[in-house]
C-alpha cells in the first residue's frame, strides 16, 4: 500500500531535528534510521526543501542541501525541536520503563522508577500513575539462565529457600533435567554441598548465577532416593491440584513418589484434616505426633 501523505509529512517533520542534531550525516545512514530507501529519502528532502513559513521567500524556507551523499541543514525554521510524544506513545514509554524497572537489579530500580514518574507527569496527566503496573515473569528469566547453563555445561550457584529449613542456602548445582508441571517447575540437579542428586522447586530459587565451572559428571546410580507414599484427599484439595502431575490414583487414594518425607507430612497437615496419609505408617505416625505436639500448645 502506498504511504499516506500524512505519514510522509510526519517523517519530514521528524527529519528536520534529526538533521540538526546530526550534522554531516550521510543520506544512507539517515535512510537507515528512518527505515526508507535512499531514493525515498532524497524525495523527502526535495519536498522538505519546498516547505517553510508563510511568506515562502528564501528567508522563510527550510534550507538544506545534499552534497557527496552528505546532508547539511542550514535553516530548520521552527522545526528544530523534536516532536513531543503523543499520549499513546507516552503510555507505551511508561510500559517500557516499567518493564525495565522490573528487570533491573534492586539497586538500579530507583532511577528508572523516578524517570517513569517523571514521564507519567509530563506527558500523560490524564492517565494516573497507578493505572499501570508491571510485574514480569521471573520464572521465565530464571529458566533462561538455567537453559544457558545446560547448554554451556556450566554449574549454577543458587540461593534456595526451603520452607522446612530455618535459613536460605547457597548451593552449587549441576542441572540434570527440568520437569515442567502444570503448577510448578522442578529442577533435578547434582548438588555439590549435599553430594547427591536433589530436586529444587523453581519458585523457591531466589537468585541464580552461572559459574565458570564445568558441571559434575554424574553417575546416575546416585539418583536421589524416592519414597512411595499414599495420601487420601479430595480431588479439589490444594494437595491434589498442586501435585496433579505426580499423583497416581489407586483404590486407597493417591500414590506419590517423594524425596523428602517431611515435605509430605507438612503438606498433609496443611490440608487441615481433609487429607489422610495412609502409608508408609512411619510417616503417618509422624503426622499424628506433629499434630498432637501442636495441639498441646493450645491446652
Amino acid at each position, binding site marked *: 500500500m502506498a504511504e499516506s501523505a500524512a505519514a510522509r509529512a510526519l517523517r519530514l517533520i521528524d527529519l528536520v531535528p534529526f538533521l540538526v*542534531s546530526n550534522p554531516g550525516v550521510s543520506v544512507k545512514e539517515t535512510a537507515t534510521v528512518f527505515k526508507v530507501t535512499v531514493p525515498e529519502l532524497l524525495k523527502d528532502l526535495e519536498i522538505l526543501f519546498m516547505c517553510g513559513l*508563510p511568506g515562502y521567500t528564501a528567508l522563510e524556507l527550510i534550507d538544506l542541501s545534499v552534497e557527496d551523499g552528505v546532508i547539511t541543514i542550514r535553516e530548520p525554521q521552527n522545526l528544530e525541536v523534536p516532536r513531543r*510524544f503523543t499520549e499513546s506513545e*507516552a503510555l507505551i514509554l511508561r510500559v517500557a520503563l516499567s*518493564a*525495565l524497572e522490573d*528487570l533491573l537489579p534492586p539497586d538500579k530500580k530507583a532511577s528508572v522508577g523516578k524517570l517513569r514518574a517523571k514521564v507519567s507527569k509530563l506527558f500523560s496527566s*490524564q492517565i494516573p500513575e497507578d493505572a*499501570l503496573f508491571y510485574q514480569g515473569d521471573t520464572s521465565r528469566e530464571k529458566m533462561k539462565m538455567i537453559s544457558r547453563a545446560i547448554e554451556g555445561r556450566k554449574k549454577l550457584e543458587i540461593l534456595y529457600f526451603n520452607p522446612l529449613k530455618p535459613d536460605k542456602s547457597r548451593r552449587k548445582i549441576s542441572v540434570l533435567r527440568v520437569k515442567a508441571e502444570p503448577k510448578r517447575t522442578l529442577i533435578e540437579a547434582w548438588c555439590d554441598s549435599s553430594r547427591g542428586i536433589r530436586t529444587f522447586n523453581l519458585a523457591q530459587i531466589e537468585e541464580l548465577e552461572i559459574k565458570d565451572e564445568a558441571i559434575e559428571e554424574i553417575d546416575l546410580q546416585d539418583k536421589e532416593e524416592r519414597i512411595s507414599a499414599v495420601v487420601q484427599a479430595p480431588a479439589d484439595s490444594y494437595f491434589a491440584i498442586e501435585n496433579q502431575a505426580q499423583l497416581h490414583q489407586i483404590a486407597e487414594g493417591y500414590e506419590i513418589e517423594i524425596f523428602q518425607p517431611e515435605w509430605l507430612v507438612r503438606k498433609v*497437615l496443611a490440608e487441615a484434616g481433609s487429607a489422610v496419609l495412609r502409608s508408609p505408617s512411619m510417616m503417618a505416625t509422624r503426622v499424628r505426633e506433629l499434630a498432637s505436639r501442636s495441639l498441646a500448645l493450645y491446652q
Partner: protein
Amino acid sequence: MSNAKTERLVNLTMALLGSKRFMSKTEIFRRVAGYSGNQETKERMFERDKDDLRSLGIEIEVASHDPLFEDEVGYRIRPEAFQILESFDPEELGLISLSLGLLRNDEFATAAESLNRRLNSLSITPQMPEELVINEERVSESGLAEILSALSQRVTIAFNYRKLDAKRGSERKVNPLGVSAWRGEWYLVAEDLERDDIRAFKLSRIESEVTRISKAGAFEIPADFDIKDYLVMLKPWEFSATIQLRKSSGIGLRNRAYSILEIDEEWDELKVNFASETHALRESLWLGDDVKVISPDSLVAKVVASLEKIVASHG
C-alpha cells in the same frame, strides 16, 4: 498530488506552530502555501488536513473567542504541545533508550523506533548505563497496542471475552481504566458498561479484535485510580493474625511480618498479614509445633479443630 499534500501538511504545521495568535481559516487560506480552488474546495482540503494532523497525534488548538476574530474560529499549535521541551539528562535518555529496546520485537516496535529517533534528535548524547545486562523479554501481548491507544485517548472499546470455564465468549463494551502485566500475562481493568461494574480482563481471553466505539475523551479516569485495587493477585494481603513462632523457624513468615516481638528465649510473637483466613490456617498448620496462633479467635478455633481431626484420622 500526494507530494503537494505532504508539502501542504508540513507548511500548515509550521504556520500554525509559528503563529503567536490563533489563525482564522481566511488567514490560513491566504497565507499558507498549497490551498487553492474555490472556497468550498479549500474548506474541504483544510478539514481533511486538520483531521490528518490530529490522527498523527498533533494537537491543534481551537479558539472561538479570540478578540481578533469575533465570529470566526481560530487555530494554532502550541509549541508546548508539539515539541519536547522538557529536559532529559544523558543518563535518563540512556535508560529510555534501553527500555524502548525491550519493545523491539513487539507490536510497539514502530512506535518505539519513532520515539527513539526523536529522542536521539535532542542534541544530547544518551549515556547507556554500564554493566547492565538485560535479558530479552517479550513485553507485549496481542491486543495490548489497541488497548493502550484507546486508554491514552479514553475511548470506549468493544471485544469478545471468554471467561474461564465458559464455552463461548460474550460481547463486552468497556471504558479502559488501566493495564497491568503480571508474570507474563497482561490484564485490563475497565468499567464494564453493561454490567455497570469495574472488572478485570485477561488479554489472552479476548477472542476478537478490539474495536473503538466512541470518540476520544469519552470518559475520565479518577486521579486516584490504582489498578492494584482491582486485581486479586496485586491486592495487599489484609487478613491480619498474631502468631507465636519458635526462633529460627518460619523464615518466610518472618520476612513478611510487620512486627516481631521477643517473648522469651524460645519464642517470638509476630503480626503477619495473610491473603485470607484459609491461607493463614494452611501456613500455620504447615509449620506444625513451631507455631502457636494467638489471634483472631476464629483462626485459633480452626487450627485446633483441624489438629484434632488430623490426630483422629491418623490413629
